[in-house]
């Protein structure tokens, strides 16, 4: 059973169908990137999964607990980090976390220990007596993540956690999220920064105009839409000779010049591609570069979506 199961949810706002029969799942210990253009239905889906909004149809299960039938039970499994989170004025980091720890029914020594643990995990221990008002955006995001972890949830939903962060803060956040996946937490994370997600996620769910366009591991989704793999090859010999040799080989389609080498498109298995390299060597060519170019998340996203607006 997946830790997070989105089961055919639909959400309408008047005549607008914000989410249309969306289904996907996130396994424990895996990070799934939730990708889609603005207004695609990401935040609506996440808010439904977080029990904050209601679907018109469908349900979401958190560790098997329905967000509709047992929202309080579901909330015990869930850590939700919204895109716009709140801070209380005149409150220190410790007081903020202590308040939420109490709100999560943690008492006595357990509460104090848990606050210390999340402060340490998010590297905020040194700032515990600082007021929240003076924190940078990156530190506030880390604090919000710390709050999200207080009750040790098994499912984390992070809505645009990297938005507005500088590169260092983004790297630090990415490391934290990876560490959390290492603790067997199922993590759904949305972001507009696709390169960021590509380095962080095991799987993706692509949504456009409220419909899920693809879900699964990055590799599976890429393989599903990529019919031919572009491969860059450069040899010490003449490029024309390389081109002639390549086009005679099975599985090789179209070749074009790029810099001092060639890019050809290959259709077939990795074994077949290894066979191409071996055939070039057998033909007396001396390759110095031979690089298959897998589709990046941006290419995947662009080929799956049509830029539809709702």
């Amino acid at each position, binding site marked *: 059973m997946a830790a997070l199961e989105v089961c055919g949810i639909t959400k309408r706002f008047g005549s607008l169908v914000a989410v249309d029969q969306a289904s996907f799942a996130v396994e424990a210990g895996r990070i799934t990137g939730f990708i889609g253009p603005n207004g695609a239905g990401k935040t609506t889906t996440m808010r439904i999964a977080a029990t904050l909004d209601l679907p018109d149809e469908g349900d979401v299960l958190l560790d098997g607990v329905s967000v509709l039938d047992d929202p309080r039970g579901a909330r015990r499994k869930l850590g939700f980090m919204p895109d716009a*989170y709140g801070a209380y004025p*005149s409150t220190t980091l410790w007081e903020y976390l202590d308040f939420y720890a109490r709100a999560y029914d943690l008492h006595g020594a357990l509460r104090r220990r848990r606050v210390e643990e999340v402060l340490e995990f998010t590297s905020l221990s040194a700032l515990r007596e600082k007021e929240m008002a003076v924190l940078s955006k990156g530190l506030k995001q880390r604090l919000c993540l710390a709050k999200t972890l207080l009750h040790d949830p098994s499912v984390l939903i992070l809505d645009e956690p990297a938005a507005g962060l500088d590169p260092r803060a983004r790297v630090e956040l990415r490391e934290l999220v990876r560490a959390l996946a290492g603790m067997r937490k199922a993590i759904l994370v949305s972001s507009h920064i696709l390169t960021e997600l590509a380095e962080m996620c095991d799987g993706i769910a692509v949504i456009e105009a409220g419909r899920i366009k*693809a879900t699964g591991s990055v590799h599976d989704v890429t393989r599903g839409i990529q019919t031919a793999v572009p491969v860059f090859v450069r040899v010490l010999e003449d490029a024309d000779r390389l081109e002639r040799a390549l086009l005679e080989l099975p599985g090789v389609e179209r070749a074009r010049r790029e810099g001092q080498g060639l890019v050809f498109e290959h259709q077939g298995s990795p074994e077949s591609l290894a066979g191409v390299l071996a055939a070039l060597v057998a033909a007396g060519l001396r390759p110095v570069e031979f690089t298959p170019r897998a589709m990046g998340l941006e290419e995947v996203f662009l080929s799956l979506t049509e830029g539809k607006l709702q």
Partner: protein
Amino acid sequence: MSGASDRWNPIFLKELRQSLRGRVFGILFPTTVLAGVAVAITAMVDLHPRPIAGPDVLLPVLVVLGVAALGLVPFSAFQSMGGEWDDGTHDLLVLSHLSPGRIVLGKLLSAAVESVLYFAGFAPVLLFTFLLSGVDLRDLLFLIGALYAASIAMSAVALALAGLTRSRFWRVVLLAATAGLAFLALVLGYDLAETFVKRGRGLGTGHASEDVAATIGLILAFGTLFTAIASTRLAHPEDDRSGPVRWTVSGLLVALLAAVTTVGAGFMSSVPVFEVAALVGALAAAFAVFFVTEPERLPRRAAARVPRNAALAVLAAPFLPGGGRGVLWWLLQLAILAAWATAVAAWHGAGRARPWTPGTFGQWCAFQSYFLVYLAGFSLALGRVRERSYGPLAARLILPSVAVLSMVLPLLAGFLSGETNPIRDSILFPTGAMQREPHAPKSLVALVVGGVVLALNLPRLITSFAQVLAASARRRRPLPAPLERPTDAAHAG
């Protein structure tokens, strides 16, 4: 502190910390206390050398304290709840393990402590007014206690109104409404204080029992009702957000009838049962506007709490969410009212000027038909609107507007056409004049129209019961209904 407060309400601790650290309280508290002292001194100077100056100094001091207790403390509560929306902390609170009731209770406790601080600040001045003589200690303590309780009740009103909407614009409107209510409470409180300490009708005189009962009743009613409303507004949409309010209103109406029958026995001997029953029915109708305009569906969490026993489920139906069940709730209140009126009429016997006879009962039913048309008829007509997300709010605005227009337009038409008595001649259902000038044909029309509306609502009422019985039957089954699962974790759509 951290250890001692381990089991305290976290919201209370947070609110108290924020209030006491906040600049608003830091400025307003000393300013208000200084204003109270200044007012007392000014009153003293003006009154010199009257021997019994207590009442003349107490009243202006109570007004200043009233502004703090009924204005500043509820304003702080309103801002606190509104701030949860504005600061984006509302969602985080709702997601925590705090129940809506604990959140509201925490904020109310904080308001109670803030209010205590104001009262403590005013204590020397209040003691001083007592020492000036002319103020009975019991009256003084009752007025202080009532003002303190009113402060908490107004804070409950403020919390409920602030929790109604996320929109800043509407919250400003609701803040103005809160301020209006606070002003009304201040005026009523001043009148009560004046009655007690200046008009010689205080607790020691034996004439205050009705005033005391009315004051305590009003404060308790507002406090309880709005605490229930504030709590349900924070509940999950699939939870029962209507039932607690329905139970509270029913309880308050029964308490009102009990109070009118016992404490208000003198009042009851001079006012016809018909008029009391009609007024309380109108009050129930005002609340019913909120219940009959709900969507018809039984929310899932509410369905999960329907009694397993089918008979009990049917009895509980009027107190479960849903527009049709709102109509049932209102009809139940009418049944309670009719039973009460019959019992009171039987108790008072034939000596009453206007007994509760089959004739007056018919007229009362005709009067209630007027409400039935708006509550059941128009809410039925707005069925499709009510199912939309904005529907209940729209229906709650449309229903009273239509009711007011239907009274104002014929009145206007009557005036324009030169009718000598436009109320009598133009309104389809006579209301206030019906008791004194019975118009049998119009009462009959009202009853027929009411009957037709009720008949049109029958399918809706049957569906309301059917939903409850189905939920009850589901609870008796050993396993919940299976949920649809995703067919494929990796698919292209």
